[in-house]
């Protein structure tokens, strides 16, 4: 698939604050691409540069092969769904949707037809005459999307479109967005600070932190193989084991010496050398938890622990297990504890096992143990 948007080493500063730093990325035609990061990391600023509201200090933005970095917003084939919708309060739903085509001076008949199609798409015919103040948040959201889509943009930019909605509506709108994307086939760039939204909607996710893209990949890649401590912690929960490579086992595995925990076996996600400081990330659901000591093959890790806390959440149960000097997050999704004769409970001694392949050695060295001065290198 060819790319519809290429961003090359774009920088933007407000005064002395570098808000977007050397960002490069490419978005494929027709996909949903998410910019995910905590509030204030520069997502909106990057989006505003793509839309044309801000000019980058340096770098280029290629839309379908042409550099648009210096064009005003009204001359880019890109449209935005704003964070708080920005519907025109003096215009009806239908007139809001028609705005873009009227600005172009399209013939009346054509405008009517297009507006009609958009009302079909967002299923809001019966509200066409209402003013924005008379419709609900979810409906405003849909009008904002239709108003942007009627321009047939090459890319639709969505800035935290669901942030203002309550949880139930958010889940509903997420499905709705997915449906709309399937129907129109336009490329979406989706800005959010909510990892669940990004994971469920996107083909690719760029994770941003302090103006830098920390990692770019498919949802599975960024979840299973986080490159940095930031990504590992931002996407889902994780357990981090800072340690030193004790020995390399063949070409695939290595033993890590983790102070306060012991020796653990890990897959070499990247080539490591004995003595190197590394951090291992292990997701809570990768653990197996049992009261009896299991017999495990040598490819598995086995550690004794004591249950510190149990949080029952219905579909899953979270355990905090004391293990050496660590408190580990453990997640059991297939919960049978109520049916077990003697469920695992507080202060029980338990055994934790996990497969060496399930851990992930982070690329960057940030998060190394305090014994070495923290080399906070950028990725």
């Amino acid at each position, binding site marked *: 698939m060819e790319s519809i948007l290429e961003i090359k080493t774009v920088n933007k500063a407000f005064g002395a604050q570098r808000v977007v730093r050397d960002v490069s990325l490419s978005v494929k035609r027709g996909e949903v691409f998410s910019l995910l990061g905590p509030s204030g990391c520069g997502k909106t600023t990057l989006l505003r540069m793509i839309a044309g509201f801000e000019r980058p200090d340096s770098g280029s933005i290629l839309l379908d092969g042409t550099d648009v970095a210096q064009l005003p917003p009204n001359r880019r084939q890109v449209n935005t769904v704003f964070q708080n919708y920005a519907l025109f309060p003096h215009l*009806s739903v239908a007139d809001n949707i028609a705005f873009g085509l009227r600005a172009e001076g399209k013939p009346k008949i054509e405008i009517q037809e297009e507006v009609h199609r958009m009302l079909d798409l967002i299923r809001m015919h019966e509200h066409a005459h209402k003013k924005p103040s008379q419709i609900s948040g979810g409906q405003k959201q849909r009008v904002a999307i239709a108003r942007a889509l009627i321009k047939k943009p090459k890319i639709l930019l969505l800035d935290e479109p669901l942030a203002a909605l309550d949880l139930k509506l958010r889940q509903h709108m997420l499905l709705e967005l997915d449906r709309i994307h399937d129907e129109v086939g336009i490329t979406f760039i989706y800005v959010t600070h909510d990892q669940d939204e990004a994971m469920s909607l996107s083909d690719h996710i760029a994770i941003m932190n302090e103006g830098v893209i920390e990692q770019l990949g498919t949802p599975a890649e960024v979840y299973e193989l986080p490159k940095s401590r930031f990504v590992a912690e931002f996407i889902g929960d994780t357990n981090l084991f800072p340690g030193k490579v004790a020995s390399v086992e063949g070409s695939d595995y290595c033993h890590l010496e983790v102070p306060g925990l012991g020796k653990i076996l890990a897959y070499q996600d990247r080539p490591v050398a004995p003595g190197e400081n590394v951090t291992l990330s292990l997701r809570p659901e990768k653990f197996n938890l049992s009261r009896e000591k299991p017999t495990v093959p040598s490819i598995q890790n086995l550690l004794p622990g004591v249950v510190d806390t149990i949080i029952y959440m219905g579909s899953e149960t979270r355990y905090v297990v004391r293990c050496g000097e660590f408190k580990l997050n453990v997640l059991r999704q297939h919960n049978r504890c109520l049916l077990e004769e003697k469920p695992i409970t507080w202060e029980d001694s338990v055994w934790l096992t996990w497969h060496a392949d399930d851990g992930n050695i982070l690329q960057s060295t940030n998060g190394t143990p305090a014994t070495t001065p923290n080399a906070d290198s950028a990725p």
Partner: protein
Amino acid sequence: MITRLGRWVLSRLRRFLPEWLLTAPSLLWLLLFFVIPSLLVFTVAFRPPDPYGRIGEGWTLDTLARLMQPSYPAILWRTLRVSMVTTLVCLVMAVPAGYWLARQPASRRHWTLLLVILPFWTNFLIRIFAWRTVLHPEGFLQTSLVKLGILSSNASLLYNEGAVLVVLIYTYLPFAIMPVYAAAERFDFQLLDAAQDLGATRFQAFVRVFLPSIQIGLLTATLMVFIPALGSYAIPDLVGGPSSEMVGNKIAQRVFTDRNLPHASGLSALLALAVILPMVIAMVVRSRHPDKVPVEREKGGPREGGAQG
């Protein structure tokens, strides 16, 4: 039947009573201090004058007949024209000013607003006399314009309609800026971004989004300028000449010089009529032809566009 009707009336009453109660004080105020006095003034037009400047006994249509003086239509038309031009110029200057003010950071905004209302700290008449000095034939402005060859030496900046216009605009501009600014301050400027994002130029965004969003402010500004301009007489009296008299001057003359109150009230009624009549006509026309043409097609119209979607 009657009880049902009674019940219906009661339910209606109950539904609308709270609203009526809420608006009652302001309605009462309007009635007591605006509608009734206006009507009183207008009834005076049907009374004969009396030689001592009082209102005579009985009723007469004489005054109305005397309003048919040939000089009045011209004066009335001039009054309307001058007031409309004043209002228009004030609006044209107030809109960018209000827009600019609303976009300033709060600290600078307060300073600039203070500058807008600063003239009010000087008495109105003193400010008009200051203009007389500025526009005087031997004043700084005229002498330097003559020296520069822009103005011939026998031209006059004072005592004409131009002078009246300038001073009216000067006087009422703050009254236009304030409501426009108040409306602009509540405007969500992100809407201009949205308009541009949808392909509008900056100018289109301004006209199609900003102006309609501040229309209440524009309307208030129009009334705040137009109504006092219509009734102004001090300004045309002091900086205007015989060729730039307004209805206000005539009313003042009838009251203070001729001591003919019925005639003055007839003129007042004429002026009010000249303003209210076009407004009523405009309102009727607007309600007959709503200017929003619905985008939605009527039921039963062709739907092929929708079917493709």
